[in-house]
């Protein structure tokens, strides 16, 4: 999925300079302020983190083949799931779409030359790398074993692993995502091309805008929370330590105030990607454009009011629980609205099942399951049983992997011709989408059953009756792993050997398709002027594309 070396421009476009050929050498990349190059820097870094986090997941699934804790020691296992969580959440999922596709596309989709603050954008990447290096240092020098949730007083008093270093890494990476969110908000407000009114914005932009709101409002609370944990470890202030008069549950409130909305930071961008793909591969304006855009904002706002559903059994008052449960059910409605509108867009469309569309449809299916199982967890009576079991693990992987990662891969495929100027091998791509879908379900569906059976999460060794389902899950994980390696291989391969891409290989609408692939340094030859609504697929327009399809 990476393309750090600027490959020679395709022969067709040799005469025109593009952003990849605008400068050579390490310095032209490490000091670039071009949003497209920064997007590629991010793409390389998060792919690296994804592989590290995935490696930890592989070790965990191997350990769980047998009920006894026999492959690694309990300490090691605890560090594995902690570091898997920390790396996947903070160093892959949260930056995944915003920092790569968002960075690449936000200016281009709104007809701008760059983000509002290009140097700030580069600074975000350096902060991300710095946070990542500090976290990796913590991993290498012994790891951390608190779980990615850092619950107090375990993290603040009892754990004797590298809590402070990891917290510092997350704190710095948090700044990186705040700056990215801030950059997007300002860019979307102030840099739109003439004629591009809010009501004409692509749905991906709406999703990125909603995501940026969540990032800028939520991340600072996480920042102060982990600062407090670190200070508590250093100076025994006692804010979260019951032995010193503090309240460990306050930590959970502060933590989930960020970390529940963080789930929407991960999945909202994917929803934006899916809206774009569904439109392009049905050749239709999405059904209920206003409702899809509005539901992104509704999710961003309501998402901040539901954090207490992580704490039904933690000792918060019954009344607080009732309010949080009710609000959690309300946030389900805008998500349902999106799923229904995407499905309705297929109706009477011109549906083409090319790779990005396979990912998008996979997203809709898996996100639906993830969302529906969220209803189980928002239900207080039921949550008492399934809270902190594998049911929760399965649920959030359906949202974050089935949802967010499928959307991310769909987006990478959809915009790959634009980013790299190359097509990818369609057959291999379809195959890997299928493998991922099957492998994912085999890995995580058994975990719903395990959860209802009562297997708690974060268990290094478990009772015998959970063994069959765990073996199934590990078997699925091996398929899933192969599914991830395949795109990495053929996308890299495509950079050198694949056919050059047209400016608009999918015959899609949107400003990003109106500029060459790969785009020139300043995105457009001249500032575009928008005169139409977005997704102006015209009736009868298919005729022109018949030749392309067959």
């Amino acid at each position, binding site marked *: 999925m990476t393309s750090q070396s600027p490959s020679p421009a395709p022969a067709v476009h040799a005469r025109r300079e593009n952003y990849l050929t605008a400068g050579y050498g390490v310095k032209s990349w490490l000091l670039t302020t071009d949003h497209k190059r920064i997007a590629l820097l991010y793409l390389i870094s998060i792919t690296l983190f994804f592989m590290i986090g995935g490696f930890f997941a592989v070790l965990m699934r191997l350990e769980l083949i047998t009920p006894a804790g026999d492959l690694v020691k309990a300490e090691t296992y605890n560090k594995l799931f902690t570091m898997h969580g920390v790396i996947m959440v903070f160093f892959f999922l949260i930056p995944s779409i915003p920092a790569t596709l968002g960075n690449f596309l936000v200016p281009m989709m709104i007809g701008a030359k760059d983000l509002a603050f290009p140097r700030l954008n580069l600074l975000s990447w350096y902060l991300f790398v710095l946070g990542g290096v500090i976290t990796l240092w913590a991993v290498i020098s012994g790891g951390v074993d608190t*779980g990615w949730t850092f619950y107090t*007083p375990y993290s603040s008093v009892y754990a004797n692993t590298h809590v402070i270093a990891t917290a510092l890494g997350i704190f710095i990476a948090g700044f990186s995502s705040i700056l990215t969110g801030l950059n997007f908000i300002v860019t979307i407000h102030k840099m739109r091309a003439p004629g591009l009114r809010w009501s004409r914005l692509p749905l991906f932009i709406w999703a990125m805008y909603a995501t940026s709101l969540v990032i800028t409002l939520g991340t600072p609370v996480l920042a102060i929370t982990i600062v407090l944990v670190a200070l508590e470890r250093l100076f025994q202030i006692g804010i979260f330590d019951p032995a010193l008069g503090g309240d460990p549950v306050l930590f959970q409130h502060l933590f989930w105030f960020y970390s529940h909305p963080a789930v929407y930071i991960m999945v909202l961008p994917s929803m934006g990607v899916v809206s774009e793909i569904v439109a392009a591969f049905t050749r239709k304006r999405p059904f209920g454009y206003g409702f899809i855009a509005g539901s992104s904002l509704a999710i961003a706002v309501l998402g901040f009011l539901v954090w207490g559903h992580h704490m039904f059994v933690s000792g918060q008052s019954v009344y607080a629980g009732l309010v949080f449960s009710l609000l959690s059910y309300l946030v389900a409605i805008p998500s349902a609205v999106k799923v229904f509108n995407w499905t309705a867009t297929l109706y009477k469309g011109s549906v083409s099942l090319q790779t990005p569309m396979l990912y998008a449809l996979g997203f809709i299916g898996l996100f639906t399951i993830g969302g529906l199982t969220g209803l189980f967890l928002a239900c207080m009576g039921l949550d008492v049983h399934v809270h*902190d079991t594998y049911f929760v693990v399965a649920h959030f992987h359906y949202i974050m992997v089935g949802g967010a990662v499928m959307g991310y891969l769909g987006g990478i495929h959809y915009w790959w011709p634009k980013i790299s100027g190359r097509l990818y091998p369609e057959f291999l791509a379809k195959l890997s989408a299928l493998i991922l879908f099957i492998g994912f379900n085999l890995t995580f569906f058994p975990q719903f059953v395990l959860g209802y059976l009562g297997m708690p999460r974060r268990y290094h060794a478990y009772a015998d009756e959970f063994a069959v389902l765990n073996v199934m899950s590990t078997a699925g994980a091996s398929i899933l792993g192969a599914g991830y390696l395949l795109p990495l291989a053929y996308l890299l391969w495509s950079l050198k050997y694949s056919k050059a891409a047209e400016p608009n290989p999918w015959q899609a609408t949107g400003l990003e398709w109106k500029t060459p692939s790969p785009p020139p340094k300043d995105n457009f030859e001249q500032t575009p002027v928008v005169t139409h609504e977005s997704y102006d697929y015209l009736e009868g327009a298919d005729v022109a594309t018949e030749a392309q399809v067959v």
Partner: protein
Amino acid sequence: MKEGLPLFPDAASTWARDVDHLYFYLLGVSGFFALLICVLIVVFAIRYRRSKGHQAVQIPGNLPLELFWMGVPLVLALSMFAWGAKLFVEVSNPPAGATEIHVVGKQWMWKIQHRGGQREIDELHVPLGEPVRLVMISQDVIHSFFVPAFRLKRDVLPGRYSTTWFQATRPGTYHLFCAEYCGTKHSHMVGRVHVLEPAEYERWLASTPVLEGPVDAGHRLFEALRCDTCHSPTSGPRGPDLAGLYGRQVALAGGGTVLADEGYLRQSILDPHALVTEGFEPLMPSYAGQVDEDQVLQLIAYLKSLGAAPAGGSRR
């Protein structure tokens, strides 16, 4: 241990059945919607696949349809909320007269003490068909008391009592898990819950050696710590008499009242100046550090026994 592929855990409490019914309701509703979406996607993808001579029909949207598919899920969601909330309120309110058992969680074991003084570690014997109320506290980090067969889970916090209750409906031995990650041997903080027929339970109680019941231990502590110098029927203005205190509303020096439950008694022992009884000076020193969680529970058991007997009756 069961053979084959298990799909459902044992259901061994009154509440387990209720939770299962709710589960089936949610499974039904979500199964319907998941299937609906999948079928529609597959049907549309085939029926409207891109082909020569077939064009997409532009449909901008449909307001009644949008309202319909917001309204129906909303009604269903509210029904789930109401049902789940009703169950939760029930499990939060133990019936009067429930057998009380004390649970202290620590890294990495469950310490249990019965009312008669029987102690167990990682084992819990309970009678069939009788409500049992658990009063739980942790000595270190947060744990969570989880019995899948009872569909019951409750976090066990340091510094604060949490309570829950259940009524077992089937004899047998069931898993007890710690469900909140608590450090290295989290997955070894497991135990077993034995549900016994009432007669068998009595036999178990009788055959388990008891060094000292919690009330007696608490009484001994009460005198060893010289609590009785200030808390007795004759102590006058130094401290309130504690007989019959448990379960009563206490008027506070700063105004207002507080219910004298386990949490209040614990706080008054460890942080006596926080809630001072009306008419008394904040003279009492804190006993934090002098008594551990087990001993606090014993003191509370003793104070509760004073409520059961006529004032001063059980003290000599």
